[in-house]
């Protein structure tokens, strides 16, 4: 069964088309990642799919419910952790979970049971403390736990690890995997971290300027770039080093990032020697020459013409 289906979803703010005709199909039990830079339309799409915003046009169903006509039924089926932890600092963690449980019709014993089940992601010793005393990571995890109180079948996570330290990020990843593996929960997450999308997601959609520009498994997307990448780290001060590569047939593209040259080539292993020799001929000292497979950042570059971090700036 399809957990999320969107057809031509559009959301405008004045003249701006923040989401511009997105078609989407996410299978039940899938972890689907929406990858894109800030302002690409990720959060707007999530806010539509979780009933906070109406689409300007198009339609969508989540867990079988239409997001316009059956919004209230849909809310029973979804859990949502928004980009900024939506918590009240003047409540304790326990009060937030209890209020959340009550609003979803859980009885006191059920609320207590759910809190015990969610213990792995909660800081149980801090549950009776005011949220204002929590660290950023503790708030994120409490927000995630609150969104899981009613055992939703589809979980939306809008940039769930932004602002977390590496340890906190790993903890959230592990919980997402566990929810998916043990409960079969469908997870739709947005992220601007390539590594996160690569690590967690069965499939990835790349969004740019409100449009879905590519979709597939991480491996499929990387293969779609169709090239290997040779990274050459040079001593500084050799601004014209890329000119030395002009005569090498297998070199398809050269891009400079500081002291690094990112060289796209159809056959990385065969191109390594000619590249090394070319630098030697023009006396450009090479500190490191490495061959790697394409990353999602390369995919993003190939599709949009920009690197993720460049668009963020």
């Amino acid at each position, binding site marked *: *069964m399809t*957990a999320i289906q969107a057809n031509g979803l559009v959301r405008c703010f004045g003249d701006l088309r923040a989401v511009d005709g997105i078609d989407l199909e996410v299978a*039940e*039990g899938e972890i689907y990642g929406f990858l894109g830079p800030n302002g690409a339309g990720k959060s707007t799409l999530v806010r539509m799919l*979780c*009933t*906070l*915003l*109406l689409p300007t046009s198009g339609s969508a169903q989540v*867990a*079988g*419910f239409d997001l316009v006509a059956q*919004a*209230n*039924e849909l*809310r*029973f*089926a*979804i859990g*949502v952790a*928004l980009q*900024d*932890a*939506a*918590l*009240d*600092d*003047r*409540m304790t963690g326990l*009060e937030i979970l209890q*209020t*959340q449980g*009550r*609003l*979803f*019709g*859980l009885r006191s014993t*059920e609320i207590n*049971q*759910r809190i015990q089940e969610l213990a792995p992601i909660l800081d149980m010793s801090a549950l009776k403390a*005011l949220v204002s005393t929590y660290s950023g990571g503790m708030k994120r995890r409490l927000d995630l736990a*609150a*969104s899981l109180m*009613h*055992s*939703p*079948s589809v979980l939306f996570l809008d940039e769930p690890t932004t602002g977390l330290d590496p340890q906190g990020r790993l903890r959230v990843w592990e919980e997402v995997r566990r929810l998916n593996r043990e*409960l*079969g*929960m*469908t997870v739709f997450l947005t992220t601007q971290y390539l590594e996160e999308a690569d690590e967690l997601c069965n499939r990835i959609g790349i969004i740019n300027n409100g449009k879905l520009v590519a979709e597939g498994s991480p491996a499929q997307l990387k293969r779609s770039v169709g090239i290997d990448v040779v990274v050459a780290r040079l001593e500084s001060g050799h601004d014209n080093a890329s000119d030395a590569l002009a005569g090498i047939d297998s070199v398809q593209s050269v891009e400079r990032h500081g002291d690094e040259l990112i060289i796209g080539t159809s056959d990385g292993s065969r191109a390594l020697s000619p590249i090394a020799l070319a630098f030697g001929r023009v006396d450009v000292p090479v500190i490191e020459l490495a061959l790697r497979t394409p990353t999602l950042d390369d995919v993003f570059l190939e599709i949009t013409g920009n690197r993720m971090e460049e668009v963020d700036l």
Partner: protein
Amino acid sequence: MMSTPETNPAKQRVIVARPTGFLRDVLSIAIRSVRQLPRDLEAVIPALIIPLFFLVINVGSLQDVANFTAIEIDYKAFQLPVAIIFAVTGVSRAPALVLDIQNGYFDRLMLTPVSRRALLIGHIVADFALVVLLVMPVLVFGFIIGIRFPTGPFGVVTFIVMGALWGVAYTGFPYAIALRTGNPGAVNSSFLLFFPFAFITSAFVPIEAMTGWLGAAAHYNPVTYLLEGLRSLFLEWDAWALGKSLLAITGVGLLSQTFAFAALKRRVARG
């Protein structure tokens, strides 16, 4: 009745969400709002001090002047309803609601199936509890300085309930501003609305003793009739005065809550 999509493992869990009903939604929001009261003392303490301050100052400075007017009751009793109005007017959980909007918790509530009207009514229920609490110290102070109710204990209860109803009736204005603007500064400045309500009235002398434009304006101020109703409880049961008082509360309540619910509708619209 909800239709159920095809089964998936997450839905086979023992604990499942279920519709709650409007009253339970109101109760859940009200419980949360009341729980926060002791954590928002800075919003409550001025409402405890200001009415006592005005009661002491008004009685001390105006009692002798008032003797020249046709006041039928002791001036301390004449001023007690004014102190009650000062205690309960404009006191609400609207600043807390603005914080909810600003910190995103309002969005979290919107992601639940809670009745949207319960988001406001729950706070208003908490306000009723708050204003009853605020009336008490003023009333106790009144007893200490010798004010008595010839209408007996039921008169005291009527006094408290009417004061609390007025407080709740007025809350629609700060809620409307909170929901419309989401701005704490705007909510704090909503007390400016309170000045014409409180001062262009028979707060200091009976309406009969007021002349010129002030007297004319006071005739149209619902608080004048509220004060008359409350003051009547220091004489004898007066159904006509109490009826006009309740009518004034109802009129202001309908007006302010219409604004508040219109603002709520706009705030929860998904447009």
